[in-house]
């Protein structure tokens, strides 16, 4: 609305009004005032009408956006199970790592103990101060130690490999968290979209509708968090091997 329009009556109309009042023509003065206020009301009505129509459109588009329904019904609960999966996987990895460390410690300590037992006699041998009896004991101790040590270092290697493999959780949970981040971004966009719809009605038509989830069967999906409830996925390496061998692999 321009500033001019905000003035209820024009200068000419005001002068006319003064003239009517001076002449004592109150009927004409009333008529003039009514006409002036009517002009205002018509503009107001037009504005209310426009707003009503925009609100109606906005509500309609809001209901039509199925993606929001999907988000609330499927994607948010799905995100919850994904995050639960992350907690479980990180917990499993932490426990595997700590189990391996706890199993490694006594092995390393045992090796140190054996070395400490052998060391005094070994020193004697090196300084040529060993007696024949002691030498025989040392030989036996060394024999036991060497076979023990090789066994124990093999055990340590396999425990360290377990620790290494447990770190795979970072990849698996990372892929799952990325999907949750994408979802959060989409919810954010939907909320912004909603605010835009109610704020600036002109924008509605320009906002592209979110496309439905891709249903491509070979589309990457990341780690399967609910393998038990699905029959389109393998449950582990054995299933993969069976499937591939059924294909002639």
């Amino acid at each position, binding site marked *: 609305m321009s500033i001019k329009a905000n003035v209820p009556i024009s200068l000419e109309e005001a002068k006319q009004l003064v003239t009517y009042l001076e002449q004592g023509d109150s009927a004409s003065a009333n008529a003039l005032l009514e006409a002036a206020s009517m002009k205002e009301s018509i503009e107001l009505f037009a504005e209310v009408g426009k707003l009503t129509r925009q609100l109606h459109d906005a509500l309609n588009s809001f209901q039509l956006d199925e993606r929001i329904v999907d988000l609330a019904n499927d994607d948010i609960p799905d995100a919850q199970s994904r995050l639960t999966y992350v907690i479980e996987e990180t917990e499993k990895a932490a426990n595997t790592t700590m189990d391996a460390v706890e199993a490694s410690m006594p092995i390393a300590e045992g090796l140190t103990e054996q070395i400490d037992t052998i060391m005094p006699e070994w020193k004697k041998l090196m300084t040529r101060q060993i007696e024949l009896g002691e030498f025989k004991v040392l030989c036996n101790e060394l024999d036991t130690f060497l076979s023990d040590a090789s066994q124990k270092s093999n055990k340590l290697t396999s425990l360290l490999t377990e620790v290494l493999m447990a770190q*795979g*959780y970072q990849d698996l949970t990372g892929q799952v968290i990325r999907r949750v981040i994408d979802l959060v971004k989409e919810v954010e966009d939907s909320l912004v979209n909603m605010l835009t719809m109610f704020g600036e009605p002109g924008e509605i038509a320009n906002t592209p509708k979110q496309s439905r989830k891709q249903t491509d069967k070979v589309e*990457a999906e990341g780690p*399967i968090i609910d393998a038990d409830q699905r029959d389109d996925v*393998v449950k582990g390496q054995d299933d993969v091997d069976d499937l591939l061998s059924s294909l002639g692999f």
Partner: protein
Amino acid sequence: MNKSMKILVVDDFSTMRRIIKNLLKDLGFSNIQEADDGNTALPMLQQGDFDFVVTDWNMPGMQGIDLLRAIRSDAKLKHLPVLMVTAEAKKEQIVAAAQAGVNGYVVKPFTAATLKEKLEKIFERLG
């Protein structure tokens, strides 16, 4: 198995690349390079004389399945053995990978023994 063969490990997660690299080192391989997706891997393969590829499936940029298809459709690379190590576990995906000419498929999480077994199987078959 020729222990000095040149291997490319393709995965977007550096932790997983490290794990696979370490496992391969345990098995005696030391000539290993890394790439973080198909787009990085393909030019490396085209330029370098790689003997073996271990690739993830789900990566930003070029995915593992597309890298596999690109390798199979490249006259120079088409015989290159490819082992897929991925969390993708849908049957359709495994079938698609097989059809695209994958040499082995390992699902994550996997064990050191599984990786070793699949590698040996691939090289045994290649002779």
